[in-house]
């Protein structure tokens, strides 16, 4: 019985994990049709920002919840100004340029921090669940993810920013008709997307440890979740695919091992893309956000 609860919590954690690391990519992809292959490195940068701030004596919570998204958002802004804005409408070129960017960022972080694994202390102790000892921080991540998605939904639904965003998602001209330069909308979107990635990286840092190359581990999962989710409905699509992939990969992990979990998840992604070439949201959530 306790074990069932443990399994369910781990599944929830995996779903949250995927949803959390996918959020930034989903926003950028959903609104700009830009697939940012440096997304994993933005997450990684969030982690290193947290680490650097924490080492500098800044409060850990403040570092991961506020500073990490700020710093990575700024990096995103710079990247958008220097690279991405020249490539709008050229999807494959954007993918290539951001891929180059990801290598570049890995190199820079390696130069600064070295390529050894480093860690941020875990600020929440474990707790007892029946006979089992559980990571308290995992609960925090589940909570943060839920809060993040509710927040995103509220912003999209009830604010002027959200209105513009929803307009841009359907058609870039709508933003223009509302009196906003689409280029500005893109710039802001990319910055917000980067900030969300940095947020995810900051929050996850205490749990996973940091390597310059650890972005690669995030990109595959979030890439697949977002693309499978589809561009039609950022929140519901990404959530749906996170739930699907998170649950399945964790169930398979429990049944056999983590490797098979990954492989089953990837295989499933191929099947889904074949069956639903416009993603889950293209099929089921046509008119929501």
């Amino acid at each position, binding site marked *: 019985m306790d074990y069932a609860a443990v399994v369910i919590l*781990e599944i929830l954690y995996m779903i949250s994990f995927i949803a959390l690391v996918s959020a930034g990519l989903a926003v950028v992809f959903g609104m700009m049709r830009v697939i940012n292959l440096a997304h994993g490195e933005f997450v990684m940068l969030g982690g290193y920002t947290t680490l650097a701030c924490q080492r500098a004596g800044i409060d850990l919570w403040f570092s991961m919840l506020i500073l990490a998204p700020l710093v990575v958002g700024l990096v995103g802004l710079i990247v958008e100004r220097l690279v991405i804005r020249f490539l709008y409408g050229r999807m494959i070129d954007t993918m290539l340029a951001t891929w180059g960017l990801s290598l570049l960022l890995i190199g820079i972080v390696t130069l600064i921090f070295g390529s050894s*694994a480093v*860690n941020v202390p875990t600020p929440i102790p474990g707790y007892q669940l029946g006979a089992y000892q559980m990571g308290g921080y995992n609960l925090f991540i589940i909570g943060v993810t839920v809060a993040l998605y509710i927040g995103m939904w509220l912003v999209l639904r009830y604010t002027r920013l959200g209105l513009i965003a929803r307009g841009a998602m359907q058609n870039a001209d709508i933003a223009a008709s509302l009196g906003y330069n689409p280029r500005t909308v893109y710039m802001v979107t990319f910055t917000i997307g980067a900030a969300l990635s940095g947020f995810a990286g900051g929050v996850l840092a205490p749990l*996973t440890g940091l390597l310059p190359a*650890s972005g690669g581990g995030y990109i595959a999962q979030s890439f697949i979740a977002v693309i499978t989710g589809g561009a039609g409905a950022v929140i519901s699509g990404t959530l749906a695919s996170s739930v699907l992939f998170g649950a399945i990969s964790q169930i398979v992990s429990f049944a056999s*091992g*983590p*490797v098979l979990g990954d492989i089953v998840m990837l295989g499933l992604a191929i099947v889904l893309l074949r069956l639903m070439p416009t993603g889950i949201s293209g099929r089921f959530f046509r008119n929501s956000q």
Partner: protein
Amino acid sequence: MRVSRRDFLGATGALAVSSSLGSVGAFAQGKDILLGSVLDNSGNLDIYGKPMVMATTMAVEELNAAGGLLGRKIKAIQYDTQSDIALYTKFAQQLARTDKVDVVHGGITSASREAIRQTFKRANTLYFYNVLYEGGVCDRNCVVTGTTPAQAVEPIVEYAMKKWGNKVVILAADYNYGQITAKWLQHYIKERSGTVASTDFFPLDVADFGSTIAKIQQASPNFVVAALVGGAHMAFFRQWAASGMNKKIPLTSTTFGVGNEHLALSPAEGDGIVIAGNYSQEAQTPANQEFLARWKKRFGDTKIVHEIAVSQYQGIYAWAETVKKAGTLEREAMLKAVESGITITGPAGTVSIDPKTHHAALDIHLMEVKNQKLTIINTVKQRPPSDTAQFCDLLKNPNDNKQYEVKI
């Protein structure tokens, strides 16, 4: 197209310059003894490789300062393999065929060793592997100065089973080191009539151990042995501590500390992990203290010194001793010298090469992590590589070229 061809010629021209530079350099200093090394100085294994590269540099400098070998200077040719196996084979061939070095010290993971060992054997280049590993390599051309399971794994099992009980969970890295070490673990545990509740393998890029930790709790063993390797696997120790398991089920490891993992974990997270190995910076021997002082003078920071850096350092000294004894750099004579028994004293104690297996008998410490330090619980002097010795006798079968595994 015309221009692109010119481009091509330009590139190949550069190539010619670079390759001829290499051979000209080697020729001009033809009297130097050439010591090659292939180690991961960058990439995700550089936590192991960087200090080994430094140790190589330091050992060669010290030997040269003491007059070199056979009256000749030693020149180190070190290549960075960037944690990429393909570069190992490339540079191994370069060392053996182009640079024509007299000896090679290198390789970190067992995967990298197996990628290059045969190259050196074919090229008749003496090869030293100076890293703890899963044991069993029986190759006359290859000298091993790192620990094997009989030396560093059995003491853990012995100590932990006596102290905590006989139900064990094994977690191991999913490549030959982890696979074979897990077999030895199972062998030693069964020998002491213990039970292995489960054995799980993890590819080097796995960083999420949530389901694993839950499964371990379900199995509720008396203790856990972790033979995990590399940066991503560090996450296990963190997640283990984050869930509070470090207070509940004792944890031991065959690899912890080798990459200075104890420094990356906070005291609260790392304390209590039991390991066994050849080296602790805390060892109060004069040899170790002097070694650390020299390191500090040369590189500044001694924090990063770990067991396999010391192993590499000792390996080079053992080879130097071999050359002195042989009086020549001819491979056969050096091997004869190895087989006559070589003994040196290094920072980690006495290293004596066993003529039958070309492995080293070493001093082994049982250690516990306390406040980011590897505190020595007890020490066994000159523990022999008895695992490999079960199968391997190079004096009798000099042409043996196999890696033996324990049968369970």
